[in-house]
């Protein structure tokens, strides 16, 4: 899995001719580091008891389900040039609560209304960002506070529990993997299709590459922003449904570090922080790389602190490599 990332990073820059010496050296060192790290991980993987067992591979794949879904939305947001949404994890939690509550109307209506609910929450934020130039980070942090406040007001902050067991098929396992993994693959496929094969997807790349040019060219900035964050909200709602089902109930505490993990997967997948470049399936690769390394550290008995630190270092190295490579453009 780590081969995927080192492969993208080491690939020779096409416009190396225009790059300056110092940057090339830093880039070479960092790419060397990535290669060394990949070898260390490989060596670690070979010498670690049980890493190559079927059970372990299944555990790694199963662990990327929830973060993968949220990361799809995060990727679309970052490609659109709006950096990140700090509220996707909280949106997953509030849609989980909504889903568990809505189960009393039946499973299918609950799923449909939850996705629409997530889409609307996202689209409202996205319209403000696209049409009025609201700062996405500030706005989404504020949205976290608003959502948490509303949930506490309406549910007193307790855990919502399902009325019956009709939903439990969402936790079924097929071919050794939980349903949430397959749902995640579906969300990735839909995200990839939208970004590559629709007019909207092309417009998202345009806005991300040069928002001023997109505005001058007359693109509907508000609609595109609403679409981007609406899509991310819908994906987070799917994650919320699966999370609610998995935990057999939902509260605001459900999602933990989901927002940060989704940002990390997006960055490790090579999406350009400033927008315009990246892809949904590469984010899935990023999520799998993080999951594999985390799993390896876990098997070798490293503490939670070490796992978090390694994740952070990985993000830093990839972000710098991606940044330096994108700076290699001739101006």
């Amino acid at each position: 899995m780590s081969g995927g990332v080192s492969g993208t990073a080491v690939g020779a820059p096409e416009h190396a001719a225009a790059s300056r010496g110092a940057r090339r050296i830093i880039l070479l060192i960092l790419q060397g580091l990535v290669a060394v790290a990949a070898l260390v991980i490989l060596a670690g993987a070979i010498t670690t008891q049980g890493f190559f067992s079927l059970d372990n591979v299944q555990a790694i794949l199963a662990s990327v389900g929830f973060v993968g879904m949220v990361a799809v939305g995060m990727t679309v947001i970052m490609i659109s040039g709006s950096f990140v949404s700090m509220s996707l994890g909280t949106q997953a939690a509030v849609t989980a609560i909504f889903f568990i509550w809505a189960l009393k109307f039946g499973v299918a209506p609950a799923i449909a209304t939850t996705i629409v609910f997530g889409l609307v929450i996202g689209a409202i934020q996205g319209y403000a960002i696209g049409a009025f130039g609201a700062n996405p980070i500030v706005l989404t942090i504020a949205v976290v506070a608003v959502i948490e406040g509303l949930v506490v007001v309406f549910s007193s902050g307790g855990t919502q529990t399902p009325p019956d067991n009709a939903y439990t098929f969402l936790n079924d396992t097929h071919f050794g993997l939980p349903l949430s993994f397959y749902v995640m693959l579906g969300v990735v496929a839909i995200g990839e299709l939208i970004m590559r094969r629709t007019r909207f997807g092309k417009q998202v790349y345009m806005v991300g590459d040069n928002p001023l040019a997109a505005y001058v060219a007359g693109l509907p900035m508000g609609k595109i922003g609403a679409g981007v964050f609406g899509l991310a909200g819908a994906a987070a709602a799917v994650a919320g449904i699966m999370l609610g089902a998995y935990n057999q109930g939902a509260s605001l505490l459900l999602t933990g570090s989901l927002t940060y993990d989704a940002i990390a997967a997006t960055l490790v997948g090579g999406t350009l922080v400033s927008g315009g470049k990246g892809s949904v399936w590469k984010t899935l690769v990023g999520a799998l790389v993080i999951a594999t390394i985390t799993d390896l550290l876990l098997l070798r008995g490293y503490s939670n602190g070490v796992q978090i630190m390694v994740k952070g270092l990985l993000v830093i190295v990839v972000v710098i490599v991606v940044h330096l490579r994108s700076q290699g453009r001739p101006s």
Partner: protein
Amino acid sequence: MSETVDKTALISLETVSRSFGAIRAVDGVSFDLRPGEIHALCGHNGAGKSTVVKMITGLVQPDEGRIVVSGSESSIRSPQEAQELGIAFVDQELSVVPILSVADNIQLGGVSEPFFNRPGKTRGRVRELLDMVGLQGLDPSDPVSGLSMGGRQLVEIGRALGRDARVLVLDEPTATLSTAEIEHVFSAIRSVAATGCGVIFVSHRLDEVLELCDRVTVLRDGKLVDTADTSAIDVDQLVSMMLGDVPPAAAPSLPEQGRAGRTAVEVSGLAVGARTRGFWLKGDHGHVYALAGQVGCGATEILRAIAGLEPTATGNVVIDERRLSLGSPESAVAGGVSYLSNDRKGDGLFLGLTAEENLVSTRLDDVSRGPLLNMASLKKAAVGLAETIGLAPERLPEPAENFSGGNQQKIFIGRTLDRSETKLLLLDEPTRGVDVKGRMEIHKLVRDAARDGTTVIFASTEIDEILDLADDIVTMRSGLVVGRHPRSEVDAELLLGEMTHGQPEKVPA
């Protein structure tokens, strides 16, 4: 012209030359600046003015020749070294920081500025500088954001003086100012010169040059034409010095079939801000109109207003009998306007996306079925456009940033071509930074677009381009229209005269 070097000169250039690649931008130019003198630097686009200014201010170095500052030969390798030699530069683009106070702006960026600011010590000095530039009534603690463009210009001049400048270089300081503001700036420049400072004044506006300056140095094609006392020449002589021997103008190259038509576009009473007012134009199908004027003449603002990019614009724009809302680019595009700015890298191309994506960026609807793209017809449209603009279709998957300036401009223009929705094509400096061959190709593309019935309005500062491309020419100056002429009735001299010192049309109040 002064052949011998004046020992008392503040700065003298001695046969300096500078090439960029194969182009000799400045070729053996000499002139000097005396204490207390206001010295104009004139020349048409590409004459070498800005390269000379860059040599004096340390942004580029001469390949040949030498620069003597206060009697000793100096190499000015950076703007910091220029500052240490007492040379201060006020750029065309203002570099004041609006949210900081006037006093902070005046102290900004000085090499002698202490790390920790001591306001008590500097207050008296700031007051003195503000008085010198005619801002007696201004409180130094006011933010610059409250000042007019002219006030900001004066603060910049004050900042330059605060660095103990002996030589003050002003590049087009009046390009965006109103008449009253220009008077303020002029009296500031005069009082600066009265202290013994030398001022180099770069301007396109010839009447200003004659009014303000003591001597004028004229450049043409990188070479020195002459340095003359302004009292000894008039505007017409200055114009012919700038133009040299003009070859007889080429016959209009447009096919006659493009000329017939009915009114397609009607602009009336268009105003942007306080300067650009009373603009009107009746545009026929298939016609190419030039808005001819120097930097700051208002043509850019007119095009931006029609494209929906000037929120304060007022007036009427009617395209095919439908009134255009001037509020947003989105509504302008919906009304049939295609606009290309003069800054293809800033707000034009999507540099990180491929040539193909750029070419189809404005016609995604045409290559979609519902929300889904039809990849085959997208590809076909892109290949067709690549052929139209003369780009090898194999290069379509390359990012736009990989292309040369000329090819980037062709991609930029290509995205507006073959679009049935485009009724009015607006181009601001359509061939800026493009070589001669690319320029001819781009002109042909624009003419072809007009032949298909599109109305084209372009803004240009370049006489050759205006004469080569336009059917009808509107000259502008200081935000107002000066004259309107069919192409067949103008020559370079008339155009340059109107662009630099023409009397504007009256605007009804």
